[in-house]
């Protein structure tokens, strides 16, 4: 592979998602309930994708929804859940309990090292930790090695090269130049380490505008781009919108009571498209009101 020339990379969500094969290693951008590539997640579910090997750092409804939809074979993240606020990830917990998914829980720092190996073109990197923890028992592929200089025992972890990274950004241009706000989480690393990058943006802007905002992920790494307003919903995508806590609660409540399928039917399958999804959600504009005042912002989390 070489870097991608600056050509127009715009396409449709359906077309973009169709490039993700069943069984693919899929890196999910964003973290916790922020900047998750939810429009792509929903489209993958609509298209009936199966057998995915998900890779990420800290995730929530992105992973849980894909697991609920039966799209996932293996989960390799450092965290999946809804934090202290909404608690454990219901579909993920249930699928683990029933042995329906491989739990390959990893560590942010290990995944970082594995992505960096891919990014740097080396087949492995050493890490200091992991030993002493049982996380290694979920990863029989790790090897112990000795530093040739210090004799120090280290853990060698193999390069991780996802088939595709799914990223969402607040803005980007037609060439795939993306602007992100901090925290970038692993998005930059995913972009370099993956074989392909599919991006959604809330707003397509000119190259001048994305340059002025600051290009975080360069277009030469991006294969396809789709403009999807609110494409991270119900996750946040600052500076545009905060996360939709009532909606996340609706999902968690449904899934915890065993009705993830009902949620999927209503919000993914029956909506048919992101236009349909946005109509089904309705109150999207409220989420952009965070910047009006501290009180308005707090109100969204009350």
């Amino acid at each position, binding site marked *: 592979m070489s870097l991608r020339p600056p050509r127009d990379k715009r396409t449709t969500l359906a077309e973009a998602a169709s490039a993700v094969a069943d069984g693919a290693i899929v890196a999910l951008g964003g973290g916790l309930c922020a900047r998750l590539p939810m429009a792509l997640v929903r489209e993958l579910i609509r298209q009936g994708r199966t057998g995915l090997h998900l890779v990420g750092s800290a995730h929530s409804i992105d992973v849980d929804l894909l697991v609920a939809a039966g799209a996932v074979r293996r989960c390799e*993240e450092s965290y999946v859940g809804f934090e202290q*606020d909404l608690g454990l990830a219901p579909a993920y917990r249930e699928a683990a309990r029933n042995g329906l998914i491989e739990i390959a829980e990893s560590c942010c*720092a290990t995944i970082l090292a594995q992505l960096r190996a891919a990014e740097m073109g080396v087949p492995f990197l050493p*890490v200091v930790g992991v030993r002493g923890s049982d996380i290694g028992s979920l990863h029989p592929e790790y090897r112990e090695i000795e530093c040739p200089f210090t004799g120090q025992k280290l853990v060698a972890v193999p390069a991780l090269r996802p088939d595709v990274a799914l990223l969402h950004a607040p803005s980007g241009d037609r060439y795939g130049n993306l602007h992100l706000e901090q925290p970038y989480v692993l998005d930059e690393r995913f972009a370099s380490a993956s074989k392909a990058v599919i991006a959604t943006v809330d707003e397509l802007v000119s190259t001048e505008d994305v340059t002025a905002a600051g290009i975080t992920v360069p277009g030469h790494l991006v294969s396809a781009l789709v403009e999807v307003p609110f494409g991270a919903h119900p996750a946040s995508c600052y500076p545009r919108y905060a996360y939709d806590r009532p909606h996340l609660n609706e999902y968690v409540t449904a899934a915890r009571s065993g009705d993830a399928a009902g949620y999927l039917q209503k919000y993914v399958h029956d909506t048919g498209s992101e236009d349909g999804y946005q109509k089904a959600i309705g109150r999207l504009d409220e989420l952009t009101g965070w910047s009006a005042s501290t009180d308005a*912002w707090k109100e969204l989390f009350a």
Partner: protein
Amino acid sequence: MSPRPFTLDEWFVVLLARTIRPDETVFHGFGSPCAQVAMHVARRTHAPDMVLVEGAMYAINPEPPFIPPTGNDAALKQGAAYSMRFEEFFDAALRGDVDRMFLSGGQIDRFGNTNVTMIGPRDRPKVKLGGGGGGCNLSATIGNLTLWTTRHRGGRTLVPECDFITDMGHRTPAGSRTELGFPGGGPQWMVTELGVFDFPGETVRLCRTFPDVSVDEVRAATGFPLDVAGDLRPLDPPSTTELAAVRTIDPLGVRKGEFDERELSRVFAHDPGGGCAC
């Protein structure tokens, strides 16, 4: 003017805050509102020069207008001149430039090993917990760890043996930190809703108690033989400055989400004789 009464959750985060030394670089992980609030309390009280790394934001010394219920929200980087990149933070922590991390666990054993991965067998866990974030590497290299749990009383958190060790304390079946060559010092403090513990050697010891909790209650809730410090003392109550900091920083009360209703109903008052911050 007599100070207002205060609640267990307020005192608890103050106790966490006090484990931070001035000038330390401190970090908290995901889903940890008590630790998160505690770090901001420390920076506004006894540790104004600390380097506060705001959890999932990696923002340095922000002044958030409030603590939101998610750890990745732009409110948490307000007022910060900059944020670290994800890898900048992990690199700093792994090379030994981070002094303290807060860690909790669904299970904690007497060596301070913690389990945030799963309860039950590995192929079909009864409960898949959220996961360890960066802990299994960070706990090896970060200077000191402050552990905490708000679920001591139920008896299922402080266990003889973790079903799964996510983050290493002082010793696991693989050996001690020294044997593994880890530079980090491991658990230094553990704060629970029943008391404060230190680690004089490799194992945990009760050293401070709340006025409404007896040593026997602590013992009954602990799944391993309770070690008690010879100079066991009552905990110093929060100062009015500390309480004010808690209330300013966490107006939404996000910290309360970590506690059972029963604990939230514990209310204390300063005794007229004083009760200073330690």
